[in-house]
């Protein structure tokens, strides 16, 4: 049984070439779902990529559950990340795509494949193992990605607009699934979204990014209900 880990970015700074400089100093609480919002270019994806290890911070430390992961390879971090698209290898069937989470060389024993099928059942895809990704809907593909997250058994889940290409109905069911898995596994979830509805559905706390910085962080959906900053109000389209 994994338990939630908290994530801290201590004075983390990142700049690509001569682009804008990002500076993050923030803690995301353990075992909770934090929703990140903010305008395009504000640094949401950069923040997640730093946590996932896909970008290397120029300065500062990234600490997950007390462990300094700043210099760890993405595969060594206690983190699974789900992207908006291309989470599955198009040339591998569903079971193999999930199986990669068990062993990157795909050398699974019978117990391993059972584990894969169990994960598929947990995300509502019983018997989908032999299907190819091209035959799945967008929602089903994200479910497969979640199944792989399950077999990887990492305590932190990062979602980079993972539902951006899904319709409202599908978003609801995927969000419900994420919420359920989060409760069962005590996951720490950090999710980027542009949809206030997503946040209302799932957020334990929220953070708002602007110009490469955390502008505000507040429990629950306070940022939505009573935006403390005119930038947030403007982003949400609330006069005021």
């Amino acid at each position, binding site marked *: 049984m994994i338990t939630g880990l908290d994530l801290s970015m201590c004075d983390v700074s990142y700049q690509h070439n001569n682009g804008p400089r990002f500076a993050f100093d923030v803690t995301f609480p353990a075992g909770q779902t934090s929703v990140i919002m903010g305008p395009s270019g504000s640094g949401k994806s950069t923040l997640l*990529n730093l946590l996932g290890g896909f970008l290397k911070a120029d300065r500062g430390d990234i600490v997950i559950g007390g462990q300094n992961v700043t210099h760890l390879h993405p595969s060594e971090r206690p983190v699974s*990340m789900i992207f908006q698209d291309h989470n599955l290898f198009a040339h591998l069937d569903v079971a193999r795509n999930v199986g990669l989470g068990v062993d990157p060389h795909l050398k699974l024993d019978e117990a391993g494949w059972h584990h894969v099928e169990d994960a598929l059942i947990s995300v509502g895809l019983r018997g989908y193992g032999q299907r190819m990704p091209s035959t799945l809907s967008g929602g089903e593909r994200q479910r497969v990605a979640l199944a792989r997250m399950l077999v990887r058994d990492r305590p932190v889940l990062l979602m980079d607009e993972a539902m951006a290409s899904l319709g409202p109905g599908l978003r609801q069911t995927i969000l419900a699934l994420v919420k359920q898995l989060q409760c069962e596994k005590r996951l720490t979830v950090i999710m980027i979204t542009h949809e206030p509805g997503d946040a209302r559905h799932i957020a334990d706390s929220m953070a708002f990014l602007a110009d490469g910085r955390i502008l505000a962080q507040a429990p629950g959906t306070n940022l939505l209900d009573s935006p403390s900053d005119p930038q947030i109000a403007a982003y949400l389209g609330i006069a005021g």
Partner: protein
Amino acid sequence: MGPSVAGRHEPLSVHPFTPDMPARLVLVALAVLCLTPLIALGVMGGEALRIGSLSALLGDPFIQRALRFTLVQAALSTLISVALAVPVVLALRHIQQPWLLRHVWTLFALPLVLPQIVAALAIAAVFGHNGWIADLVAIAGINWPSIYGLAGILLAHVFFNLPLAARVFDLALQSQPVEYEKNAAQLGLTGWRRFILIEGAVIRDAAMGVSILIFLLCSTSFTIVLMLGGGPRSTTLEVAIYQALAFDFDLGRAVMLVALQVLVTGGIVLALMGRRDADVGTTGFSLTGAMHMRAVMAGERSGAAIAMLLVLVAVLFVALPFIFIVFDGFAANPFAVWQRQAVVAALLTSIIIGLFSSILAVFGAVLLTHRRAGGRFLAAMPVLALVFPPIVLSAGWFLTLRQFTDPFEYAAILVVVINAAMALPFVLRIVGQALQTHAARYGQLEDQLALTGWARWRISVLPALRAPLLVGFAFAFALSLGDFGVIALFGSERLQTLPYMIYASFGSYRTNDAAALALLLAVLVFIAIGFAEWLGQRQTRSGAP
């Protein structure tokens, strides 16, 4: 709700932890290959290039004429190819039948992989003094002139480059948003005004890039000029280098000519690199690419008849040399020729050299794409390669090795390596782009899942990229099979390839042998390319989206 832009423009495709040592090694090897002969020539040439002899060489009317002819024929070739490509591509847009269009574009892609030596032979036979066209007009009592010299060179260059320019224009036109056409229709734009607004603007933008590319290709053209030039009046720098080394053995002149050649092409490339759209290598060298054509335009009936006529002429012009290769090849009793021991040996030599150099080229391209930075350099590489055409590299290494040993001892290795280097930019385009797209899509996923090293290749890369890898391999193989620029200097009784043998037969007026050998070479090249295309398409059909 668009995806957030932040963090996407970074080179996430290659992870910051990935070592890029192998890529650097490839770059160093390329630099050594290209620069060693230049440095050695500079040292050796010190003697020959004393101020006095330098001015004497520069004042040498032969060198002056070679330089002038190089530039004039390249400019004319470019002008004619590009100017003719515009009406051809516009006419092609009138074609309503997708199957016809598909076949025309397939035909237009063929010259891109046809060995130059075979093309030169075919063009001489079709358009030459004793060729098919001459026979045809003789019925009407017209005396067809000889094409050896500028005319033949231009014909061959247009044969290679008109389809290339047309293809580039077509790709540019296709990349226009469909909304343009819709807007034009909505606004009631027709005829000339519509052309100016829609096709004209796009073609003008694309014309600059493709013109520079064609000019570079033609100014470094060797085989065509050697075969069809027909005398000292029409000699380019490249051919002059070859003649200085192969016949006159005038080292000073060879050094001077190599320096001039690199200055000319290097100057053009430098001027080109300053432009923002330096990526003129986007020329669609794949047959598969040509298959993606679609009929876009709703026809304007008025121009349809003229368009069909234009297309017919263009198609005949491109197709006739191919028809010759098959027709004359089979008329030359080819099976008897192919069974000769020397031919079998040359065939095997060609295949072995081709295999080694294409493996080397694919390997180098794969390693190069693992380079973290330098996307700009990789994009410019096809153009940079034109600064060091095969004859310059082989002449340079020939002269360098001569200082220490018998260069023919190392002929086979040098032919393999130089051919690999020549193919590398093209392979890099085919394989590199696919690898980079794949890495951009799956790189993060691979990193997260600890898919590294061989596991990454076995599970992620090879199954997904079998098609581009095979096409790249086949293209390198075809290029190497058809090479004459390198083997021209290094070939000997001991090391003969098919193109070398074709040139020898052609030079000693054994036209039957030449035709039979040309057929063999063309068949080999098209089998290689066709096989890769077929495998690639089979995978695309059975594979995922």
